[in-house]
């Protein structure tokens, strides 16, 4: 699936988008898998309460299932307007 990062999550991880092959069942599983991979992921995901996640461009939750999802995005709380 495609994993996208925005704002300081993008800066901390060092890239805006990547293709991830995973069997993670939920968003939290994916976060754990990425965090175990490299320090920069662990740093970005250290406090998930400070993060938001979107599945296929809809806001979702960290315990949501990834079944059938093609695009996951992680970012901080929005600050538009």
């Amino acid at each position, binding site marked *: 699936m495609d994993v*996208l990062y*925005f*704002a*300081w999550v*993008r800066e901390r991880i060092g890239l805006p988008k990547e293709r991830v092959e995973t069997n993670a069942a939920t968003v939290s599983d994916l976060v754990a898998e990425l965090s175990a991979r490299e320090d920069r992921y662990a740093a970005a995901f250290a406090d998930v309460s400070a993060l938001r996640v*979107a599945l296929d*461009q*809809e*806001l979702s939750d960290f315990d949501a299932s990834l079944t059938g999802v093609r695009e996951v*995005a992680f*970012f*901080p*709380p*929005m*600050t*538009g*307007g």
Partner: protein
Amino acid sequence: MRVVVQEDAFDLGAEANAFAAADDTNGAIVTFTGVVRDLATGNLDVMEIEHYPGMTERALTKIAEEAMVRWSLGDVLVIHRHGRLVPGDRIMMVATAAPHRKDAFEAAEFLMDYLKSRAPFWKKEITGAGADWVAAKDEDEDALTRW
């Protein structure tokens, strides 16, 4: 209903006139315009606005449709910019047209409250001292409980 996400500047006056020109059944037209404010220290050079192409349009459309369902509105307009802006630049605007002023005002406030916390935009303030992502405010999240 019109939702626009663009890098270019927009003309508030031209947009307001075009929006208000539509018909004579909506007696009340409300516009809200967000302007890049300088910092308290007065040294903001650039406000950079990042967004999530694709999701941004979906989120704004969903919020605008929700407003059309909740209030008796004739029309809704949402324009939001991204990219590099400087103090004084207009970031975004919403406009609502309704037969009654209460609907027009409430719907415009609803659009703003949701757009602030539910549309995927992130602001970064760049000064001579460096760059900082703007933190979301608890009061903006709290504002949603009103609706």
